[in-house]
């Protein structure tokens, strides 16, 4: 074999490829059932029954919806920019999926004499990577709205873009306060620091609140779904989209909800740490692999709770007006997060000084 090929660590490559495959298909599956869950939750909160015809309890509803979207006529408006029009939904989907690369889904497995990390890439700038990819998500919205060559789409896209950019600031500031405590940008390290119930929500409650609100805004979810405001802008930036291109936009929103839930769970709720249990002790008792599975389940449960919370909020709170949205972002959240940052810094300094002024 060529010496160049030998230099590549094939086992690692295969291991990562399998992991990527699993995580991508899992996030697609979860996004599918999020649409179902959304409809069920909405129904239950409005004293209805929700989808119940396709399969037992309507469980096949997402498949039927997907099939419907595939079968629909695909319309590309004559006056649109064809390339950008197709690129928009693809970009939205791509950025939604890419974020999952740095989230640690579990500790590690020991298989075939190898330690298999359950994180696609443990890069030391994990959080920065997430921010980078998330801000790329604006392009999906912006390109889609622009390429449609429609006033409403453009208006919605501008709203969406300005909203996402404004809330990214507050989100970043909220994270900085967290990073001052962790001292690391790697998500794996942050999770490792949160073992034994030292969850960062306890140290950063205000930071978490700000992050949560910003996460809603970043995902374009109610009460910040101005960019797709059905009542005033028809469908917002994806007004001209049809068939699976529309499906991609809707899907990317649900994947975003899933990923941001995972990120929130990782940053503030201990990630894959099993609550009320000493993980390291458990490894001694029942071995690494079962614990890794339990940890993945624990993270998954936390994510499900967050997803439910996203839906719960969506079916409770009405949409903000545009000026209210900007007021909240710039006049409330950013000052609050700055304050949070200052307070955190103050306390850290005090602690380093052994509580002496």
């Amino acid at each position, binding site marked *: 074999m060529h010496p160049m090929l030998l230099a590549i660590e094939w086992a690692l490559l295969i291991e990562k490829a399998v992991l990527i495959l699993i995580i991508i298909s899992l996030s697609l599956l979860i996004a599918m059932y999020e649409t179902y869950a959304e409809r069920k*939750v909405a129904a*239950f*909160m*409005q*004293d*209805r*029954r929700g989808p*119940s015809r396709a399969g037992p309890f309507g469980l096949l509803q997402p498949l039927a919806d997907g099939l419907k979207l595939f079968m629909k006529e695909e319309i590309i408006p004559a006056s649109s920019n064809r390339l950008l029009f197709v690129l928009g939904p693809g970009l939205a989907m791509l950025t939604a999926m890419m974020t999952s690369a740095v989230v640690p889904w579990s500790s590690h497995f020991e298989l075939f004499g190898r330690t298999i990390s359950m994180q696609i890439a443990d890069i030391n700038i994990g959080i920065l990577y997430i921010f980078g990819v998330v801000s790329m998500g604006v392009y999906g919205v912006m390109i889609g709205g622009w390429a449609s060559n429609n006033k409403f789409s453009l208006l919605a896209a501008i709203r969406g873009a300005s909203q996402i950019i404004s809330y990214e600031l507050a989100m970043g500031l909220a994270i900085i306060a967290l990073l001052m405590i962790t001292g690391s940008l790697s998500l794996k390290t942050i999770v490792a620091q949160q073992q034994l119930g030292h969850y960062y929500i306890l140290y950063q409650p205000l930071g978490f609140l700000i992050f949560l609100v910003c996460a809603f805004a970043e995902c374009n979810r109610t009460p910040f779904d101005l960019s797709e405001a059905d009542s005033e802008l028809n469908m917002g930036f994806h007004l001209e989209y049809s068939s699976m291109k529309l499906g991609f936009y809707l899907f990317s929103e649900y994947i975003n909800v899933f990923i941001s839930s995972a990120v929130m769970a990782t940053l503030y709720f201990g990630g894959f740490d099993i609550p009320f249990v000493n993980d390291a002790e458990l490894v001694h008792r029942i071995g690494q692999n079962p614990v890794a599975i339990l940890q993945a389940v624990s993270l998954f449960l936390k994510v499900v709770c967050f997803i439910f919370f996203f839906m*719960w*909020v969506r*079916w*409770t*709170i009405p949409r903000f007006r545009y000026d209210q949205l900007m007021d909240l972002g710039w006049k409330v959240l950013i000052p609050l997060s700055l304050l949070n940052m200052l307070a955190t810094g103050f306390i850290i300094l005090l602690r380093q000084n052994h509580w002496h002024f």
Partner: protein
Amino acid sequence: MQSLTSRSKTVERKPMTMWERMYLPAIAKGMAITFGHMFHKRPTVNYPEKTRPFSPVFRGLHVLNRDEEGRERCTACGLCAVACPAEAITMEGAERLPGEEKLYREEKYAAKYEINMLRCIFCGLCEEACPKDAIYLSETFTPSNYTRKSFIYGKENLLIPNPVTQPDEYAKAREDRGKV
């Protein structure tokens, strides 16, 4: 400005208090309400599997009745057609021939009896007008269909099965159509 009614009230526009402006307590309250609704009883009736009972005065699809010997009651007097405000009923009378006494109760019968279900307003005046107890409004809907023509119901659709010669069908029809 002078108010138009004695019940008008001026809306109070006090500036919101700090607690109200924080917005979060209000959100928590709202979310508690929606969460509570998840456990409420759902009033939904799963329609095709389960039907809601009709009220006792419900008027649905028409039925042409027979007497207990299975003879058609209708004598094609036309009173129902006259009473009908929507002009949905048309009929043609015919004379009963010898040997048809088992089919028709009186000497005259309806050779053709048609109700246009798209015109009918289900007021029940035909039922009231009938001197022979021949027409009744049952407790079923008119089933949906694709053509207008199919909504003109003839005798073959309206007439109830013969209780003497087809007792099973008769029982089933009575059950399907509720009160007759």
